[in-house]
C-alpha cells in the first residue's frame, strides 16, 4: 500500500461522484456550448481567416473564471458540510493524499472537458494548415491554467462549509490573477506604486503566461509559474484540511 494508490483511490471516488450526479453533464454541456459560442462569435473564428486557434484559446481564461470555481467549490466544503470528511480522514489516508486525489480528479475532469473541444481542432485542420505545435501548447497552457484555477479553488473550498462562499471567493481571487497583467491594471500600478510592485503584480498575471503558450512558445518560466502556484495552493490546502477538518 503506497501513497500513489491512495491518491488514485480518492481520485476515482471523486470522479465517480461527478458522473453520479448531473454536475458533470451540466458542466460539460455548458462548457462546450460556451467554448463554441465564444470562439465563433466573440472570437470571430471564421472572419479572422487564420488557421490557428487563438480565437478559441483567448476566451478560456474568462470561461474558467466562472466555470472552474463551479467544479472546485464543492471539493472540500461539501465534505465538511456533509460530515463525510470525518469518514475520509479516519480511513488510513493522509491529508496530502486526500488533497491530491481530489485535486487530480477535478483536474482530470477539466482536462476531459477540454479534450471534448476537439471538433474545433478538426475544423481548423480541415479548413487550413495550422501550426499543430502551437495548438498543442495552447491546449497545454489552457490545461495548466485550469489546474492553477482549480488548485486555488480547492484551497479556498477547504476554508468554508459554504459552497456559495467558496465559489464567489475563488472567482474573485482568480479574477485578480487574471487582471494582474492586463495593461490598464499594470499602468495604474506603475503610476502610483514603486516599480517592483508593478513587476511583482505583472509576474503573477495569468495572461502573459498563457499568451506565450497559446502562440506555441513553451517558456519554462510559464510552466514553472503554473506548477509552483499549483504546488503552493495544494500545500496550503493540505494544511487547511488538517487544521479545519473537525471544526
Amino acid at each position, binding site marked *: *500500500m503506497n501513497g500513489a*494508490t*491512495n491518491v488514485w*483511490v*480518492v481520485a*476515482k*471516488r471523486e470522479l*465517480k*461522484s461527478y458522473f*453520479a*450526479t448531473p454536475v458533470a453533464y451540466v458542466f460539460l454541456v455548458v462548457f462546450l456550448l460556451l467554448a463554441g459560442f465564444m470562439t465563433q462569435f466573440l472570437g470571430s473564428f471564421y472572419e479572422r481567416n487564420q488557421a490557428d486557434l487563438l480565437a478559441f484559446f483567448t476566451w478560456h481564461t474568462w470561461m474558467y473564471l466562472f466555470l472552474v470555481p463551479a467544479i472546485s467549490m464543492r471539493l472540500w466544503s461539501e465534505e465538511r458540510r*456533509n*460530515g*463525510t470528511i*470525518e*469518514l475520509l*480522514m*479516519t*480511513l*488510513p*489516508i*493522509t491529508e496530502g493524499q486526500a488533497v491530491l486525489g481530489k485535486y487530480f480528479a477535478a483536474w482530470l475532469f477539466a482536462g476531459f472537458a477540454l479534450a471534448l473541444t476537439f471538433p474545433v481542432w478538426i475544423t481548423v485542420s480541415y479548413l487550413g494548415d495550422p501550426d499543430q505545435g502551437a495548438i498543442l501548447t495552447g491546449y497545454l497552457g489552457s490545461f495548466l491554467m485550469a489546474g492553477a484555477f482549480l488548485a486555488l479553488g480547492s484551497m479556498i473550498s477547504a476554508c468554508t462549509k459554504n459552497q456559495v462562499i467558496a465559489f464567489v471567493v475563488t472567482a474573485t481571487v482568480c479574477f485578480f490573477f487574471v487582471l494582474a497583467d492586463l495593461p490598464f491594471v499594470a499602468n495604474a500600478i506603475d503610476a502610483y506604486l514603486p516599480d517592483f510592485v508593478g513587476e511583482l503584480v505583472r509576474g503573477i498575471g495569468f495572461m502573459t503566461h498563457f499568451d506565450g503558450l497559446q502562440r506555441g512558445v513553451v517558456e519554462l518560466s510559464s510552466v514553472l509559474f503554473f506548477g509552483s502556484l499549483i504546488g503552493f495552493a495544494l500545500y496550503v490546502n493540505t494544511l487547511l484540511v488538517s487544521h479545519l*477538518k*473537525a471544526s
Partner: protein
Amino acid sequence: MIEIRNLVKRFGPFTAVDGVDLDVERGEVLGFLGPNGAGKTTTMRMVTGFLAPTSGTARVCGVDVGEDRIAAQRTIGYLPEGAPAWPDMTPAELLDFAAQARGLARSERRAAIGRAVERVQLGGVLHKAIENLSKGFKRRVGLAQAILHDPEVLIMDEPTDGLDPNQKFEVRKLIREMSPGKAIVLSTHILEEVEAVCTRATVMARGKLVADGTPAELRAKDPRHGAVRVRVGVGADLDAEAFAALDAVARVERDGDAFVCLAAGATSPAAAVTELVRARGAELVELTPLEGRMDDVFRALTLGAANAEEIARERVEGAQPEAEEVTL
C-alpha cells in the same frame, strides 16, 4: 487495546475534554455515557485520529495515534456520529471505496464486503443511492464500513441514535456478536443500551470521567438501590420514623402513600420491614424491592452534587415507576 492518558482538548477558551484516562481491553464493550456536550464525541475523534489532542496521548493497539495516525487507523473501525456517507454513492460503491482505502486486494475486498453486508443485512439496498435510504439503512452502511476490515478496535459514536426499536435490537445483537476478540467502545445516551450490550460503563460529564464500572455497579450508586417500597393498610400505626428506626434502613422517603426504605447496607431491609409490620399488627399491602435506576445515577453524576438533592426531592414528590424499564 486502547490506552488513553491524560487526554485534553481545548477549543479556544473552552475545554471539551479535560484530562481523560481510560483503558479498554480486548473483549470489553465499553459504554460511553454522558449528556450532550460532555466531550464523548471529541474523545472518540481524538482516539480515531480525526482530531489532534491539545495534550495527552491515545494509543490504539500499541500505536500512538498522535505519532502514527495511519497505522493506528488501520486497526480501528469507526462509525462517526450520524453515520456520514456520500449521498450520491451507493452502499456498494462506498464499501468498495473504503475497502480500497484500507488497502484490501480485489479478492479480499469482495469477501470483506460480502461479510459486512451480510452482518448488517444490507443486501436489498446495495445498489440504491445512499441519499434515498432510510435512516436505519444509512446507519447500517456506516456500520458495514466500520467492520469491513474486521478491526481489532471498534469505535461507534451513537450507533443506535434515531433507529426504531427493531433496528436498535439488531444493532445491539450485532455488537454482542462481534464483541469477543475486539475492544468495542460505543457512546450513547440511551441508558438501557448500556445494560443491554456493555460489559463496562463510563460516565463523562463536563470533559471528565465521573464514573467507571459495570452497569450493575453503576446502578448500585443510586441510593434507592436495594431499597424496598412498603405500603401498609389504612389506619395502621406506622410512620416513617418507625421504619427509619430499623437497623437495616438508612432513611425513609415518602412516595405517595407508600414508604421507601433505603437500605443501610448490602442486605435488603425487606425482612426487617415485614417483621415490623407484622409486629404492629398492620396489613402489608405492598412490598416491592427496588433496583437502582440508571437514569437517576446518570443525572446525579452528570448534573453534580447541587442537583442531586433536587433529584431526590423530585422523586419524593412525584411517584415514579420503581422497576427499570424493560431492557432488550
